[in-house]
């Protein structure tokens, strides 16, 4: 295997193989930052900021979903979403000495899908939400009635708890890998690299495909505000 622009291929280098490209990492950590900001702005009635943060997250999420289809291999859903058999087989391997997967493992895949689905549901409800005074509303609320907008807002408020539960579970799992399996998932999500992981040569970063995703995300965020 040869060196490429996207980083060291395979497991040859000391830094480890690239498992998360920078766009996946930026999506992950921006989401981490935005969720408390979204919570804070909603709690304090700073709805202009809540809309801005929410639309930013929507753009990022649309990009990530697109990247799950058109991104580099480890970001693609088809590469890591597996059936119950693969999950059971993985569970049997979940003990020390533990060898991390080259991307998402079959169990972690469930966490990815659940979190992305929950974010999608939460953002969709927020787009249509209307406050109790009929004054503040999501950018698509004009398409629904006051009652429907109120139902969307109530779902939006309730569903944040589901999102929180999934986040707590996600963090608990990451802690379990660190403590019980001596595997640092946080570092990998920061550097993108995993020592000892064997990945197919990711090749150069697919800039054209990335730009298509970025345009898609910006277009969607613009469209809902028209």
């Amino acid at each position, binding site marked *: 295997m040869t060196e490429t622009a996207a980083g060291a291929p395979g497991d040859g280098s000391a830094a480890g193989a690239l498992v998360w490209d920078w766009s996946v990492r930026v999506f992950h950590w921006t989401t981490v930052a935005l969720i408390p900001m979204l919570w804070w702005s909603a709690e304090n009635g700073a709805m202009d900021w809540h809309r801005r943060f929410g639309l930013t997250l929507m753009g990022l999420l649309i990009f990530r979903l697109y990247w799950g289809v058109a991104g580099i291999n480890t970001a693609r859903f088809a590469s890591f979403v597996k059936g119950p058999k693969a999950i059971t087989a993985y569970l049997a391997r979940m003990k020390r000495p533990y060898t991390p997967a080259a991307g998402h493992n079959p169990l972690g895949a469930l*966490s990815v899908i659940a979190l992305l689905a929950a974010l999608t549901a939460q953002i969709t409800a927020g787009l249509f939400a209307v406050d*109790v*005074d009929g004054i503040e509303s999501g950018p698509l609320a004009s398409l629904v009635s006051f*009652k429907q907008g109120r139902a969307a807002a109530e779902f939006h408020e*309730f569903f944040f708890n589901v999102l929180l539960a999934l986040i707590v*579970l996600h963090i608990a799992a990451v802690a*379990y890998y660190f403590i019980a399996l001596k595997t640092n998932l946080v570092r990998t999500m920061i550097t993108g690299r995993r020592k000892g992981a064997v990945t197919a040569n990711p090749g150069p970063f697919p800039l054209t495909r990335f730009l298509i995703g970025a345009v898609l995300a910006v277009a969607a965020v613009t469209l809902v505000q028209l």
Partner: protein
Amino acid sequence: MTVPYRTLGKTLGAGFALFALAACGGENGASVSSEQESKVLPGGGTVKEMVEKRHEAMEDIGDSFKTISDQLKSGSPDLEAIKGSAALIAEHAPNVGDWFPAETSPALGVDTDALATIWERPEEFAAIAAKFETAAGELNTAAQTGDVEAIGAAFKATGGQCKACHDDFREDD
């Protein structure tokens, strides 16, 4: 480790079940009404009917507010829609004070988002209801002139009264 997988399923399942429950338990839900709710008010009608009536009227006002808000946000506001909505708000506004007889307090076991503070601080409540009435009248006047800027300002002022009252006298939701 089978825990995350199972917990995930359980959390999701419990979450949706909880939401289904919450969605059915609202003010107009099928909950059995308490003894207090079937009491007849001096002005006629039961406590439950009054709670339902004000809930629907408040929803009407909310609907009208949303219409005005939607129109103001759009590039080309539909003035007829704004006029109709502003008139409806102004029609309801003078009655708000009458929708809250003491028998309908949650302190008596009535299922309502109205807070008992309404009857603990009646002068404050009456004052804020009067302010709302004035603001709604001004919004209606502005709406009938068709001056979008004036409508925007009056809309903000009226909305501020909704919020002020809800902050102190309505259950947070």
